């Protein structure tokens, strides 16, 4: 018997595999018993109603996908009334993902969703900050720190900060999130990308641009997970292109404590189920007693991440 449980800032997960926000909902329970997951993570909600972006909202690009769903939301009231109760029937901890256009609106929502049945709040700071220049909070350390301070004051629940890959300052942003009060980091959201239909000369997404997710994102998210684990002392939850138990092991070795699976669930709705079973078998086969024994075990020869970054930048 191997031990799959991990601890994220005081919250024990029975295994390190959970869905990524926006790629999971109550409907997946019609495919398999979602009690088996390490956590339940909801689609990002906003305080008020939002329609989302024009269609087409997804397209595929060479073995991965772009999306510009745009956070349609029924608003917080509908969420508290319909969604939170659904998950009360499960033991699995519920993680609620939220977002806001301004730091204050974000913080207000954070307080509102700090209700019974919610185990942690994932703050999607990869969304645009309309008070500044419309760049996502998590593009810069300063805006990351400021929004995290306000969010921290709004709740006593664990705060997971979800970072964006659309930045050149991942370690700095990670440290800013930690200093601002994040209990864990989710690394990472989608990467801004684009595709054009050359026949019609129209963008393949109704919104012109969208976020890249799936296998293409994996080596980028893995690098970020490594950087964040080195740069901070809080747990890192890896996310980006994870589709197999081997991918999970790679992220854990890089320094992640847990992982989120997104796009892979669209391709194989039972992907997380398979990953958890394969992860258990992997540990048994390798004679590893606990999944925690993998975390951060990358043999990186004591190279300083700073130096490495410099030399790697081509």
């Amino acid at each position, binding site marked *: 018997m191997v031990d799959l449980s991990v601890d994220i800032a005081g919250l024990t997960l029975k295994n390190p595999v959970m869905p990524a926000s926006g790629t*999971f909902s109550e*409907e997946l329970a019609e495919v398999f018993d979602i009690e088996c997951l390490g956590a339940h993570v909801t689609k990002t909600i906003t305080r008020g109603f939002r329609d989302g972006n024009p269609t087409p909202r997804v397209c595929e690009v060479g073995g991965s996908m772009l999306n510009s769903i745009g956070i349609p939301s029924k608003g917080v009231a509908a969420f508290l009334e319909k969604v939170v109760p659904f998950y009360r*029937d499960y033991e699995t901890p519920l993680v609620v993902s939220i977002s806001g256009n301004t730091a204050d609106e974000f913080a207000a929502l954070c307080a509102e969703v700090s209700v019974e049945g919610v185990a942690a709040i994932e703050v999607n700071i990869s969304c645009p900050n309309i008070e500044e220049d419309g760049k996502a909070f998590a593009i810069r350390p300063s805006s990351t720190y400021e929004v995290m301070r306000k969010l921290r004051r709004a709740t006593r629940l664990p705060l997971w900060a979800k970072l964006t890959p659309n930045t050149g300052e991942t370690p700095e942003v990670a440290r800013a999130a930690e200093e601002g009060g994040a209990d864990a980091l989710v690394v990472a959201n989608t990467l801004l990308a684009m595709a054009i239909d050359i026949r019609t000369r129209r963008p393949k997404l109704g919104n012109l641009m969208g976020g890249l997710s799936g296998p293409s994102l994996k080596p980028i998210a893995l690098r970020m997970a490594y950087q964040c684990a080195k740069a901070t002392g809080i747990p890192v939850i890896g996310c980006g292109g994870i589709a197999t138990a081997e991918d999970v092991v790679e992220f854990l070795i890089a320094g992640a404590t847990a992982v989120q699976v997104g796009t892979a669930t669209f*391709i194989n*709705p039972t992907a997380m189920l398979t990953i958890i079973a394969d992860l258990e078998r992997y540990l048994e086969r390798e004679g590893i007693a606990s999944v925690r024994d993998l975390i951060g075990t990358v043999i990186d020869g004591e190279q300083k991440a700073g130096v490495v970054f410099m030399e790697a930048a081509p």
Partner: protein
Amino acid sequence: MLTQNPPMASGRPQPTVFERDLAVRANQPVNGEYMRLVVEAPPEMLARCRAGQFFHLLCPSAGTDQPYLRRPMSIYGFYPQEGTLHFLYKVAGAGTRALFHLAPGDRLNVLGPLGRGFHIAEDWQRLVLLARGVGLATLAPLALEAHRLGRHLTAICSARRPDLLMSVDYFRHLGADVITVTDAEGTSDVAHLESLLEGLIAGAGVDAFYTCGSNRLLALLQRMGKRHGIPGQIALEQQMACGLGMCHCCVRPFRKDGATVQLRVCREGPVFDMQEAMPW
């Protein structure tokens, strides 16, 4: 009600959607444009299939065609006795090109049944379906269902040329009246269809319309439905990622109580109320 099982009252929903690797039994051309794919499906899956629902197919890779997302396909037929599930498809791009290469014995991963199928109310005795091209795949199982429920069906099948008409024998075999219209014969235009439908309404009468995603046909049936107070349903398409209702990529706008709402084709659809649907 031909909908998917709702979450059980007791709390946690029970699994009702299946992801399975199924064996291909046949994959053959129906005419110059369409292929019929038959796969062997387990009883629990077939037991849940309803006319108008769809499956989400994990198309294999074939050479440089490497489809990534699943492809939605209507149920063309489901036969619990034979243990088979049928799809009718047109080769369009990478995914359907890859489907084309499937041979008997190959395996195909399918997810389903998905979405809400057609509704045939108790008092709808005389049904009219109007479809063209791939739409006939979606509407074909409605004929089976109408037959099972003992309702009368008139199927108006449209195509570019007579040799591209499909499912005609299938509909006749199920006791439907079949009317064929084609571009080549000049019988498929809106004016001709309108007088044809007026004839049916004036004759034995029509209780409900069923159609598939064409703006032109939708506008016609909405107009006639309003004029004569005849309800109807339309099956719509949209790009899909999850197929389950999780990702919200497959929305379309609908008129509901004066407002425009975005509904998911994979979840609230693919079959919608005809008057609520909006042209695109």
